[in-house]
């Protein structure tokens, strides 16, 4: 691996991340919608908990889950579906003939998407906290940052893997992304503690990094709720998430190479409007 190769690929990552970073300020109205739309759902769910006289931390659980939806939607619509859309508008072949690693393109998409989404998720969370007057504990700030970072790397690793798998799909891509919205919100316990699903269902849902990441963050922000509503100890969840990081990043590299080969063999790599 030469220095030139490394620099070229770092430039590719920066280049692919750039439109997402710069795009986040080019369309201020998108920023408005991206922040307020999750807030509407969050508000509705928060009011249900209020109506049922639920413990106050549940409103906090909902706000954290609502912020996390931004990342999942970014994974589905701006990571998983992206290479398919690039194919539709004719960019994919340009990526493939460029003298760079394909992983740089995916990494650039992930870095840009993460930056763009983090701003929106943070805004949703801050407004939600102010609106509903909830109190979070910051007793372990280092752990909160670590859990968040590891969750995001594994989540975007999953998104990178999906991006290549979606290349196999035609119009199914849109429907698959639609299908992976509410069922994943349910399985990941975005609006209630995932422990409520039962151990084995929650364990199965843990393949989605958001499940354990969110559960760990809830336990860190509400330390007293961990024993009652937490699924696994935070350290265990962090260890599993670290494993998921490695697994998804490896799978994304493998699946991208496989799909590219398959696409070239079948001649579908640049085929539009399937």
């Amino acid at each position, binding site marked *: 691996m030469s220095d030139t190769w490394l620099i070229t690929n770092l430039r590719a990552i920066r280049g692919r991340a750039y439109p997402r970073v710069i795009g986040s300020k080019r*369309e201020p*109205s*998108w920023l*408005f*919608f991206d922040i*307020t*739309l999750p807030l*509407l*759902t969050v*508000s*509705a*769910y928060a*009011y*249900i*908990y*209020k*109506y*049922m006289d*639920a413990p106050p931390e*549940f409103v906090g659980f909902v706000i954290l889950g609502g912020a996390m939806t931004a990342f999942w939607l970014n994974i589905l619509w701006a990571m998983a579906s992206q290479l398919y859309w690039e194919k539709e*508008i004719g960019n994919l072949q340009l990526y493939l003939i460029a003298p760079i690693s394909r992983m740089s393109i995916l990494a650039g998409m992930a870095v840009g998407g993460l930056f763009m989404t983090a701003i929106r998720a943070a805004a949703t969370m801050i407004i939600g906290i102010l609106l509903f007057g909830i109190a979070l504990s910051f007793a372990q700030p280092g752990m909160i940052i670590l859990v968040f970072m590891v969750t995001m790397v594994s989540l975007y690793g999953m998104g990178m893997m999906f991006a290549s798998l979606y290349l196999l799909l*035609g*119009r*199914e891509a849109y*429907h698959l992304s*639609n*299908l992976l*919205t*509410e*069922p994943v*919100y*349910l399985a990941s*316990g*975005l*609006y*209630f*503690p995932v422990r*409520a*699903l039962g151990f084995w269902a929650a364990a199965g849902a843990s393949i989605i990094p958001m499940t354990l990441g969110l559960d760990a963050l809830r336990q860190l922000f509400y330390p007293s709720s961990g024993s009652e509503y937490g699924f696994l100890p935070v350290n265990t969840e962090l260890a599993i998430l670290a494993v998921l990081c490695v697994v998804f990043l490896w799978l994304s590299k493998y699946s991208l190479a496989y799909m590219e080969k398959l696409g070239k063999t079948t001649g579908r790599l640049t085929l539009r409007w399937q």
Partner: protein
Amino acid sequence: MAVSHDLRTFKNAAWLGWQMEANWTDPFVFATYSIVKPVAGSLILVFMYLVITGGETQTPFFSYMFIGNAFYMFVAEVLFGVTWVIHDDREHYMTLKQVYIAPIKFYIYVFGRAAIKIAITTVGVLVTLAFGVIWLGVEIDLGAVDWMVFIPALLVGLLTMLIMGLALGGVTFLTAKHGMGINEGIAGVFYVLSGVIFPITVLPEWAQSISYLLPVTYWMEALRRGLSPDLMTSLSGATGLSDFSNLEILLTLALSAVAFLFISSAIFRYADKTARRKGKIDWTTSY
């Protein structure tokens, strides 16, 4: 003659809509897809409820919440469906200009395409309600349904949604990048402020004032009163609309349909004219 021409437009648009919605996969996968999504959406609420009540679902509030959430699918899908026709035809398939210059009424075409969305959503609503009644004890007794309230409420409410969708479709003509956001935003406002999953009485007073202006508030109330009269009697006073008789609720809903018919027609006509003038009928933005 003109009516049969319009009916043919409607039928062909609905057929086209069906092909676009369903022919990407085999019927079994499509049926699963159509059912899993709404049921999962309802189960989120079910688990939220269960985790607080410790497993108790035989309560009036649970049925209230479940029924409202099931019927809200119509709000989201119809509003989104009408708007998506314009966005999809223009941006993705690039066929809007051909449809536009065809000798048909454009809004009949849009309603035909949306009709298939309503049909598919109806299946989702029915499956969700059946799931709730059979497995979760949601209080719906077919023998006790007040059909004289339920059927008119369902039809007038759907018509109101279609009419509102037309206005949003007009907005989509003029903006490719914001149409979906506006659409989802309006559907979201209805979700929070219209007593879909919780009574509006839990909202702050200023928010309740807005709730009373929204047609979906009356629609949800009328649907629940028609479908489960005993449930609504037991919740009387808690929903914020107990001062309204069934007739008053239906009349309010009908009046809002008429009001939105004028407003939406004006918005659509303005958007249509502006889109033609600015050359936006065949506009593509790769968005």
